C-alpha cells in the first residue's frame, strides 16, 4: 500500500489554448506505490494535463514538483530524466522496427562508440522483460505482435529508461477485458515494486477495480479526489458528467421483419494479402439491430468494406433487400438501399472542406433534383440540406457552413442526417460514437433505435462492449475473421470478452 509522501505533485496547473481553457488550476498528487486514476470524459482535459506532466506542453501557470523538488519540463526528455514514463493511448511504437529497437531508441547501446549494438539491445530487453514476466521477443517486429504485447513494449520502454512514475493514457481502450485484467496484474506487480502509476480513463468499472485513489476532472477543472473505498459508479458518473447519466438505452422489444442484408460465406483479404474475413455469414432483418463485437483488427474493417463494395470479396455473396450486390460498385450498393456511417467521420465520413449541403449530397449529388444530365443545381442541394439539418438538430452552422467548422458531435449528426435521411433499408454503423461526448452519444443511440423502430435493419460494429450490449437485439462476436458466437439481447460483457479472445465455444451464426 502507498505511503503518504507524494512522489509527484501538480499545483494549480492552468493551460489555455486559443478558445479553450483546457486545464483550470488543477491540483493533483501521486503517492509512492499507488495507482491514482484520473477520470473524466473525452475532452475534459486529462490528456492535456498528462502532456504537460510529460513535457509535451508547457503550462501557463502552476508548478510541478517531483519528489518535493520543483521542476520545469521543456521536452519529454526532461520528464524521462526525472523518472517519468508515459504509455500513450496511441502507442508511440514504430511498427516496422523490432521490439528492441523501439525500446532502446535514443538510448542505444553502441559498439566502438559508433555502431548500433543490436545484440546488447536484445539482451537487455530480454533481461528486463524476463524480470517482469512479460514474455516479449526482442527481435520480433512490433507490427507482428499483439496489441497487448505492444502495450507491454511501451511499459518496457519506460522501465528501460528507469521510470518510477508511469502514466497510462486510456490503456484499456484497445484491450479485451481479459487483456485488461492481465494489465491490472502487471500494474499491481509494478506498484508492489515501488512504482507509482497514473491511470487515465473514462471507464468507471476499471477505476473501481484498479485505482487506490480517484481524481475526477470535468471541463478542465478538478472536481474531487476520492479514495476507492466508498466510491460508487453512480457517484463518480455524476461527478464526471455533471448530471445524472442514463446508463441504459430504452427501447421496445424488437419485431424483426424480412431480411434486408444477407451476407453469405464471405471471404475477404486485407491489404497485405492475408485472409481477414473467413467465411462470415450474417443476416440482418428489418427492425433489428445486430451488433458485431470484437477486438480491433479482427476483420471488422474488411467485412464492412466488402459489404459496401469498397473492397472486393474473394468469395461469398452479399444481398441487400434480396438483390444480389456482390462485386457491385460502392455507388450501386449505396443506391440499392444501404446507408453507411463510416468508422472515422473526419477521414471517411465527411469532406471537411465541403459545405454541409455538399456533404449531405455526397451519395446523391448525381440524382435529381440535385442534378440532371451532369449539371449540378446547388440551390437544390442547399434546400435538401436545410431540411435534413433541421431534422437532425445540427447546430453550429447552416447548409453553406463548411463541415470543418462544426464540433465532432455535430459533424457526426451531419453524417447521420445523410445516411438515415436517404431512407436506406439497412444501415451500417461503424463505431458511430467514437470520440463523442455523452450528449452526442445519447443522440446517436436514439437515432439508431429510431431507425430500428422505422423498420430499418442496423448492423452495428463497435469496440465498446456496453454500446453493443445496450443497443443490440442480437450480438455476433468476430474473432480472427470468423463469427465465433451469437447471442440474444441479454449477454454479459464478461461472456463477450471471453469470446472475443477466441476462447469461447465456436458456433456458426445463422
Amino acid at each position, binding site marked *: 500500500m502507498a505511503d503518504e509522501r507524494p512522489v509527484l505533485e501538480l499545483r494549480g496547473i492552468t493551460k489555455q*489554448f486559443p*478558445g479553450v481553457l483546457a486545464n483550470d488550476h488543477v491540483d493533483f498528487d501521486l503517492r509512492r506505490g499507488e495507482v491514482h486514476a484520473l477520470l473524466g470524459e473525452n475532452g475534459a482535459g486529462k490528456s492535456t494535463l498528462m502532456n504537460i506532466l510529460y513535457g509535451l506542453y508547457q503550462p501557463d501557470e502552476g508548478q510541478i514538483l517531483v519528489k518535493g523538488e520543483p521542476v520545469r519540463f521543456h521536452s519529454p526528455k526532461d520528464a524521462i530524466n526525472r523518472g517519468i514514463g508515459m504509455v500513450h493511448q496511441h502507442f508511440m511504437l514504430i511498427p516496422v522496427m523490432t521490439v528492441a529497437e523501439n525500446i532502446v531508441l535514443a538510448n542505444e547501446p553502441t559498439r566502438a562508440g559508433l555502431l548500433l549494438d543490436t545484440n546488447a539491445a536484445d539482451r537487455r530487453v530480454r533481461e528486463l522483460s524476463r524480470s517482469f514476466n512479460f514474455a516479449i521477443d526482442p527481435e520480433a517486429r512490433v507490427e507482428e505482435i499483439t496489441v497487448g504485447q505492444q502495450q507491454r513494449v511501451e511499459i518496457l520502454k519506460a522501465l528501460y529508461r528507469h521510470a518510477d512514475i508511469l502514466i497510462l493514457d486510456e490503456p484499456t481502450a484497445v484491450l479485451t477485458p481479459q487483456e485488461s485484467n492481465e494489465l491490472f496484474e502487471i500494474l499491481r506487480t509494478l506498484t508492489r515494486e515501488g512504482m507509482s502509476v497514473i491511470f487515465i480513463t473514462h471507464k468507471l468499472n476499471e477505476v473501481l477495480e484498479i485505482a487506490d485513489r480517484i481524481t475526477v476532472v470535468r471541463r478542465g477543472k478538478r472536481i474531487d479526489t476520492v479514495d476507492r473505498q466508498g466510491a460508487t459508479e453512480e457517484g463518480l458518473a455524476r461527478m464526471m458528467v455533471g448530471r445524472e447519466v442514463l446508463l441504459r438505452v430504452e427501447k421496445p422489444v424488437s419485431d424483426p421483419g424480412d431480411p434486408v442484408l444477407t451476407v453469405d460465406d464471405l471471404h475477404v483479404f486485407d491489404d497485405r494479402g492475408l485472409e481477414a474475413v473467413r467465411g462470415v455469414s450474417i443476416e440482418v432483418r428489418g427492425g433489428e439491430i445486430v451488433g458485431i463485437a470484437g477486438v480491433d483488427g479482427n476483420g471488422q474493417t474488411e467485412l464492412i468494406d466488402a459489404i459496401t463494395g469498397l473492397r472486393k470479396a474473394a468469395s461469398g455473396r452479399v444481398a441487400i433487400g434480396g438483390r444480389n450486390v456482390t462485386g457491385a460498385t460502392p455507388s450501386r450498393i449505396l443506391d440499392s438501399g444501404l446507408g453507411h456511417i463510416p468508422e472515422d467521420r473526419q*477521414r471517411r465520413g465527411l469532406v*471537411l472542406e*465541403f459545405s454541409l449541403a455538399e456533404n449531405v449530397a455526397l451519395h446523391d*449529388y448525381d440524382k435529381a433534383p440535385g442534378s440532371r444530365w451532369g*449539371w449540378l443545381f446547388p440551390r437544390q442541394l442547399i434546400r435538401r440540406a436545410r431540411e435534413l439539418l433541421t431534422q437532425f438538430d445540427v447546430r453550429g452552422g447552416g447548409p453553406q457552413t463548411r463541415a*470543418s467548422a462544426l464540433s465532432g458531435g455535430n459533424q457526426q449528426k451531419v453524417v447521420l442526417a445523410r445516411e438515415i435521411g436517404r431512407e436506406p433499408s439497412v444501415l451500417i454503423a461503424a463505431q458511430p460514437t467514437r470520440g463523442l461526448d455523452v450528449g452526442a452519444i445519447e443522440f446517436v443511440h436514439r437515432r439508431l433505435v429510431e431507425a430500428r423502430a422505422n423498420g430499418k435493419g442496423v448492423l452495428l460494429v463497435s469496440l465498446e462492449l456496453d454500446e453493443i450490449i445496450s443497443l443490440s437485439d442480437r450480438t455476433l462476436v468476430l474473432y480472427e475473421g470468423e463469427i465465433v458466437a451469437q447471442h440474444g439481447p441479454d449477454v454479459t460483457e464478461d461472456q463477450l470478452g471471453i469470446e472475443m479472445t477466441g476462447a469461447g465455444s465456436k458456433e456458426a451464426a445463422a
Partner: protein
Amino acid sequence: MSGLSGEPPDMTGQTPEVSEPTPESKVPSVAARLALWQRSGGVITPILTALIAFLIGGLVVFATTGKNPLNTYKAIFKGTGLSWLSPVSIHWHLFYPAGIHWTGWDTTSPTALNLQQTLIVVTPLILTGLAVAFAFRCGLFNIGGNGQYTVGALVAVQFGVWFAGLPGPLHVIVAMVAATLAGAVWGGIAGFLKAATGAHEVITTIMLNWIALWVGSYLVGFNGPLQDPRAISAPVTRPIADSAHLHVFWGNPLLQGLHVGFFIAIAMLFVYWILLNRTTLGYEVRAVGFNAEAARYGGISVGRNFFLAMAISGAFAGLAGSIDILGWEFNLDLTVVQTVQVGFIGIAVALLGRNSAIGIFFSALLFGALLTGTSTRNLDPSVFQPELAGNLTRIIQGLVVLFVGADLLIIYLWQARKKLRLQQRKAAEQP
C-alpha cells in the same frame, strides 16, 4: 507522398487530442504572423507574395550587377505595353503630378504593339495555369504542362498543314480539337497510371515532358518526318495553311497582332469555373481532391476522377499549344520544342492565382508581362541583359511558388484558428 489539398493528417486525424487544440503559442515566427495577417486580406496575400518575390529578385539584380533594380523593373514594365491601358501619362514631381499628358489609345503606337505581345503570351499561360489548377482541385500536381503543350502544338501544326482545303473556321476548329485531344491523351496517361498503379503524377508527368521533348525533336528536327522539306537547313515544320490561321482582331496581322485565341482562353476560364462548380463531374473532382477517402466512401470512383482530371488538365495545355501555333507561330521550330516553359510557368500562375479563375487571369497577366518585358525584343539591353532577365523571371517564378507553397500552411492555420474560435463559442454556449 502527400497530395496538396489534404490538411496535415496529424492535425485532423481522428485522435482524442483533436478536441484539445494545438497551442498557438508554438506557431513559429514572424513569417507565420505576417502570413496570418495577410490571409485576413484575401487578395492581399497573393499580391504580397508576388511583391516579396520581386523584392528578392531585385536584390539578386543588385547583388550581381550592381544595377538599380527599380530601373530594371521599370524597363521591363515598359516592354510589357501595359501602360497603354492608361490613356494618360503622368509625370510626378515630388508628391504632386507635374504634368499630365493625354496619350489616348493609339493602336499603332509601340506601346500598343508591346501590349499585343504581352496578351499573346498571356493567352497560353491562362490555359497552362488552368491545366495545373484543374488537376490541383483533384489533389494532383500536374507538372506535365510542358509535355501536354508540346503534344498539342505538334498535332495542331500537322492538322494545320493538312486539310488545307477546308473553310477557315472549320479548319481552325478541327486543328484545335485534335490538339486538345492530344493534350488530353498525354495528360490522361499520367492520370491513368496514377489510378491504375498509384504511380506518382509528379514523376510520370516529368518523364512525359521529356518524352514529348525528344519525340517532338525527332518529328520537327533535321530529316524528321514533319520537317519542312523546302527548308532543309532549318529544323522547322512546314507552315500551316492560311485557312488555319486565327483571326487577328487587334493590330497588324503581319506584326503579330492579337488573335482571337485570347478570347478562347478567357472563355476557358468560365468553362473551368462552370465545370468545377456546376457539374457533377466538378463535384466529384473536388470531393476527391479534398478527401479522396471520404469520396470513395461516398461511392465516387477515385481512379476515374484521377484520370479525368489529368485528361482535362492535359486538354487545357494541349489547347494552349494549338492556339500558339494557329495564332502567331504558324509553324513549329525545334528550339521551341526544346525550350518551351509555359507549362512550368503555369504552375506559378495557378498557385499564385489560388486555383481560382479570376486569380489565374491576373497571375497569367503578371507572368505574361514579365516574359514579354524580359524578352530580347522588348527589353533594352543597355539597361539589363535579356538573357539574365529571362532567368530572373525563372527565379521570381520559383520564389512565387516557394512562398505560395508556404502560404498553404497559412491558410490552414487561419482555418484552424477559426475552428478554435468556434469551439470557444460553443464552450461558452454550453455551461
